[in-house]
């Protein structure tokens, strides 16, 4: 069945489906119950599944993830919400030292099917700690899987797949795209979770992005097309693992790569992609891999975020610089 719905609603539908299909799935977090979460992603779930399945937690992120780990050890599949990106750090210890390593520490005897949902990224004019993109801080940690959907359909299906995963998944939700509508076919057969997708074919240069920056990259490709340039846009969808094979295939065709993310470029996922693609495609590249992203500065006050975030012109500038080689 295909429906047009907002990205946030798609996640809501996905959670609803998971709660319905598997009694071991529980949703937990701050304000996820009656309020339905500050972004309403869990709207109506507690009403329909009860307080023991959709759990309002004390305001303590380490406690949320730590108890989710305990629930997973008991056989549950918790989906926890961290209210905002900048609030995940009290839980960072539990995620890094416990959640990520439990399977390895137990020599494979324990599985950690925990999804940590994090609304992330800027562009909504928020106050401090509400606009960050900390995905690289998690990508560095073996044992975690990290994904970020860019559209409603992926949001629905990637959440299904994240919940079914026996590994912990950090699910970064592009909060500025929560209200973007798209077609969702809830009976489709989705592709694998950790593969990239070509969302626009092109021949002159590859733009690689995920989450909130995919839409921007499509707009960049439209603008470039008006100038007679054919850009390919890759929606990476997964940050750990990264589908390097798909990036490589695209770059071997276009010979140029620009990676775009909101997170600071320094030690960002773009740095890793640049290094790997340089290694894999050294003789195909016509230009160094370029990155467009945040600066090595605290996420700025809302009035300055437009200068901090990649936008159409900044990405086009990188495209120009790449094509100039």
């Amino acid at each position, binding site marked *: 069945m295909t429906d047009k719905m907002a990205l946030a609603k798609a996640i809501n539908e996905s959670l609803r489906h998971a709660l319905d299909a598997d009694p071991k799935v529980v949703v937990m977090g701050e304000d996820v119950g009656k309020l339905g979460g500050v972004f309403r992603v869990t709207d109506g779930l507690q009403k329909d599944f009860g307080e023991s399945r959709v759990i309002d937690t004390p305001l303590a992120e380490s406690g949320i993830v*730590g108890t989710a*780990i305990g629930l997973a050890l008991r*056989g549950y599949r918790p989906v926890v919400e961290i209210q905002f990106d900048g609030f995940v750090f009290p839980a960072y*210890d539990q995620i890094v030292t416990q959640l990520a390593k439990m*399977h*390895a520490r*137990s020599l494979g005897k324990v599985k950690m099917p925990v999804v940590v949902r994090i609304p992330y990224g800027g562009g909504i004019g928020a106050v401090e700690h509400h606009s960050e993109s900390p995905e690289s801080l998690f990508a560095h940690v073996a044992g975690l899987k990290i994904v970020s959907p860019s559209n409603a359909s992926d949001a629905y299906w990637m959440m299904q797949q994240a919940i079914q995963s026996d590994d912990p998944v950090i699910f970064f939700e592009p909060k500025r795209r929560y209200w973007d509508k798209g077609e969702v076919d809830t009976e489709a057969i989705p592709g694998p979770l950790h593969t990239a997708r070509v969302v626009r074919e092109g021949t002159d240069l590859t733009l690689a992005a995920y989450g909130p920056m995919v839409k921007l990259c499509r707009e960049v490709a439209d603008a470039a097309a008006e100038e007679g340039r054919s850009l390919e846009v890759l929606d990476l969808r997964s940050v750990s693992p990264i589908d390097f094979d798909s990036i490589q295939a695209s770059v071997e065709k276009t010979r140029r790569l620009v990676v775009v993310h909101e997170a600071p470029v320094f030690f960002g996922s773009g740095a890793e992609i640049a290094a790997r693609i340089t290694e894999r495609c050294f003789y195909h590249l016509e230009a160094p891999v370029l990155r467009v992203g945040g600066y090595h500065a605290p996420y700025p006050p809302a009035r300055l975020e437009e200068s901090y975030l990649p936008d159409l012109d900044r990405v086009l500038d990188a495209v120009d610089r790449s094509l100039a080689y």
Partner: protein
Amino acid sequence: MTVESTAARTPRRSAGTKAGTTGTKRTTSTTKKATSAKKATGAGKSAEPALVQLLTPEGKRVKNAEFDQYVADITADDLRGLYRDMVLTRRFDAEATSLQRQGELGLWASLLGQEAAQIGSGRALRDDDYVFPTYREHGVAWCRGVDPTNLLGMFRGVNNGGWDPNGNNFHLYTIVIGSQALHATGYAMGVTKDGADSAVIAYFGDGASSQGDVAEAFTFSAVYNAPVVFFCQNNQWAISEPTEKQSRVPLYQRAQGFGFPGVRVDGNDVLANLAVTKWALERARAGEGPTLVEAFTYRMGAHTTSDDPTRYRGDEERLAWEAKDPILRLRRYLEASNHADEGFFAELETESEALGKRVREAVRAMPDPDHFAIFENVYADGHALVDEERAQFAAYQASFADADGGK
């Protein structure tokens, strides 16, 4: 610290001296601390609150109106069993310390002195209860039937935890201080959801009581009325820091602020630990929520084999605690009540030596893992990067084989 004797120790002061008689009185060195605490809090004369004790350091059974019922049906056989558990645990622990000194283990965290707290609480558990230990719960592991040699893998460096947690309902040792209190709470929340009447016990120490995770575990368990027992072994020292660097109030009193009961028990009295833990577990099973048990004990040895306690504490304190030795007091009780004869003790000594030998041989025979174990079990469902790096590593390793073959 040197390797400790595994038998019940004889106190260097005879029973009946100041330190030996009450079990609660502080020694000279600790009285100082109590005084400063008094100044700060304006508390009354009694420096330390009463603790639950059923067996005095001299091995005398004392009545306790509240907790006697939890050990009322205990048999001579059970008492000998507790004694055996403590002696064998101490023997195992001493063997591990020796193995570290011999270079067979990289590190060992000794439980010396804490046998009663661990065996008493460990034997209070039902099979379907679940244990979340720190890295020092060798006695509890023993009670759960985890083979002692399995505990040594992580200290030898061949794995990070070598047993199946669900095999004995005994979770992996947790090194990050206090993390497991939350896991225990979450697990207990799951028990409630399942409608089961199992209970969960989380072990931690006085140092961990300062961790946010422990405070959050108290909050979550109280809010959800989770069937969990927080068993804090206050062994007086978090490496070099005494308990007064962690708290201005006795630790068991922390529970009150979270809305559940806390009780301090003589951590060196195996009967008291058994009784109090049974009580706390029954509360959990009955849906009465969490309990904090503070087992007031003493870390007789170093924090770990890497530690040097002579830099931060004196002998007097240790000597005072030696007089309260958990094994000695039960032995006295067994002997005085004719529950055990010489034959029992002799047989146990033989069993103890056999255990030491078995542990020694098992550790020495423990092979290093295969190099490729680095890449095993990083993920349950696999990960492309791990696959790629494993292949690169294999090719690198194979390049040496090629070089050899070329010669």
